[in-house]
């Protein structure tokens, strides 16, 4: 038998000799009363106060129906109420409810803004302290490992290296190649106007090797591997795997954090080299098509236009960015609390923070190395 064959809730208002009598019938249940049928809504509005209520013909009453009536009655029993024995307990449960006993979430007050600002500043200080503590933990475990050579988590490092390095090569190559093509194409249009075609080698070489390569690869890696690290550590927190490790006396910093940090620090310079090389290849292809500059000429001009110091700067940046991305990712991963909201918030924060840190540190590098490796000054 399906729901539709149940008797529908109905309401009848009898204006008899001894006052108005409201007669209810049918099933007064959630599935039939929500949304409230317009007919019943209209009748409800017509009932005068002080009317008598008869529930004798009600075939079923659930707690939704009982609450609906209870609220219609203004949280007190009508003076005249005909209530069958079977429905009494249901109504009694609704009656036992205290009015508005649920705690209310405090609304937004004027001073809350100030408090929020203060909390924000505290949070920043908290993050900085926590980050320093994490770095300290890693240095301590690193020191411990220097004395205990057989404790190095080599398998974890190698597995992480494969995940963050080797598996990232295709996407790095694709993005690098396209950026190289685009840069070369746009520069070629300008340079041809001045007849300075050959300077494309300088622009591409210097721009990509020194600046664009490391930053581009970092942004990719932060989005790809940084978020994965945060999510992985976060889920391990949620499922208490990290607590299980601690209970076994295994340091989370040695087993989980250090391999990620070491692997990404080692992998990033190589990825930067790979990404920059492919970007330059893209630039060369585009220059060949646009300016008819041969590959031979390009490759011969490159070492003269870009001193080797730039390569060192680029690769150093790569390593430093890799170190920072892994540290930030692990920091936020270990902060996840066991609920889904916290996991998503920390993963987001991890990616945003690591990209921001990369760009900040890149600016520091630019200032610190302003007199190194630039051919014409």
């Amino acid at each position, binding site marked *: 038998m399906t729901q539709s064959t149940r008797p529908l809730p109905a309401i009848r208002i009898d204006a008899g000799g001894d006052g108005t009598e409201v007669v209810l019938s049918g099933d007064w249940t959630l599935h039939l009363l929500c949304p409230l049928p317009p007919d019943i809504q209209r009748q409800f509005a017509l009932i005068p106060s002080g009317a008598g209520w008869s529930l004798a013909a009600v075939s079923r009453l659930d707690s939704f129906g009982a609450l609906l009536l209870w609220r219609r009655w203004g949280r007190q029993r009508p003076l005249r109420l005909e209530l069958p024995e079977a429905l009494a307990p249901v109504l009694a449960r*609704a009656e036992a409810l205290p009015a508005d006993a649920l705690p209310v979430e405090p609304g937004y007050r004027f001073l809350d803004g100030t408090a929020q600002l203060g909390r924000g500043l505290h949070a920043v200080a908290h993050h900085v302290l926590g980050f320093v503590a994490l770095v300290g933990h890693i240095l301590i475990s690193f020191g411990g490992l220097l004395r205990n050579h057989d404790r190095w988590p080599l398998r974890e490092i190698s597995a992480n290296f494969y995940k963050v390095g080797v598996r990232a090569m295709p996407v790095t190559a694709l993005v690098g190649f396209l950026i190289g093509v685009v840069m070369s194409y746009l520069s070629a249009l300008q340079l041809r106007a001045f007849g300075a075609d050959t300077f494309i080698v300088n622009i591409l070489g210097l721009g990509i090797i020194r600046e664009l390569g490391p930053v581009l690869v970092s942004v990719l890696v932060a989005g790809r591997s940084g978020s994965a690290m945060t999510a992985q550590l976060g889920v391990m927190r949620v499922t208490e795997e990290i607590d299980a490790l601690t209970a076994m006396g295994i340091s989370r910093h040695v087993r989980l954090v250090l391999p990620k940090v070491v692997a990404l620090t080692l992998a990033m310079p190589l990825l930067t080299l790979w990404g920059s090389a492919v970007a330059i290849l893209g630039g060369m292809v585009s220059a060949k098509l646009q300016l008819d500059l041969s590959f031979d000429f390009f490759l011969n001009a490159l070492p003269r236009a870009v001193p080797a110091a730039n390569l060192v700067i680029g690769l150093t940046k790569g390593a430093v960015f890799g170190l920072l991305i892994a540290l930030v990712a692990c920091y936020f991963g270990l902060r996840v609390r066991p609920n889904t*909201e916290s996991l998503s918030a920390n993963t987001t924060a991890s990616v945003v923070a690591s990209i921001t840190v990369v760009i900040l540190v890149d600016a520091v590098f630019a200032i610190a190395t302003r007199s190194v490796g630039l051919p014409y000054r």
Partner: protein
Amino acid sequence: MSSFPVELQGVSTRFGKQWIHKGIDLAVPAGEVVALVGGSGSGKTTLLRQMVGLLTPAEGEVRVFGEPLFSGSHQAQLARRRRFGMLFQQGALFSAFTVFDNIAFPLREFGVRDEGLLRDLVLLKMAMVELAPDVALRMPAELSGGMVKRVALARALALEPELLLLDEPTAGLDPDLSAAFVALIRSLHQALGLTVILVTHDLDTLAALATRVAVLAAGRILAFGPLDEIMNVQDPFIDRFFHSARSQAALARGHGAG
């Protein structure tokens, strides 16, 4: 109302090459508390998940309220789903919601728009599972194991279900809490006239709650009937399960409580 809220007809389940169930026939009568028992890995929880449509059997049919689970229009299926509630083993509370929002969620989805009514309804459900109103704003992570189960039960009861499915309702609770939880379920069963299907390992729970027991072993229903009848069935599995010294003690305790 259909006299058999849940009917299984020739249900067979296969995981990979292994057959978990081979032709299970079971009709759960309305208003009963039916316990599914069986050894570890005998597919009790799998059967429960098939009843609510989380898994589909390889063969056979699951009928809920007299109709196949996946029949009719989208609306009809939704209406059918809203007639039963399920309590998951770990509670499965939405961890990003407060207790209040967890219980209010199915009601809001159903279409209850009146916030005042919604607050009263949630408060009523919380009172039904004996939760104090002041836990309403807590997050699931801040609750004890027993409270998580209570909130999950309140959420399962939110849409006034006619059928309640419980997956290991007392697993992970200490004896005191689990006795209280069993008493709670029994009083709700009596008050609301629900049909309850539960999966349990715990003989205390079984003896105190179940009006009928279905024994699942070797991929089929070995026996189905009141506990006293089941105890008299001659079978090596039933013998081991119900007649060991520990089981006897537990059943005696459960009967005492019942």
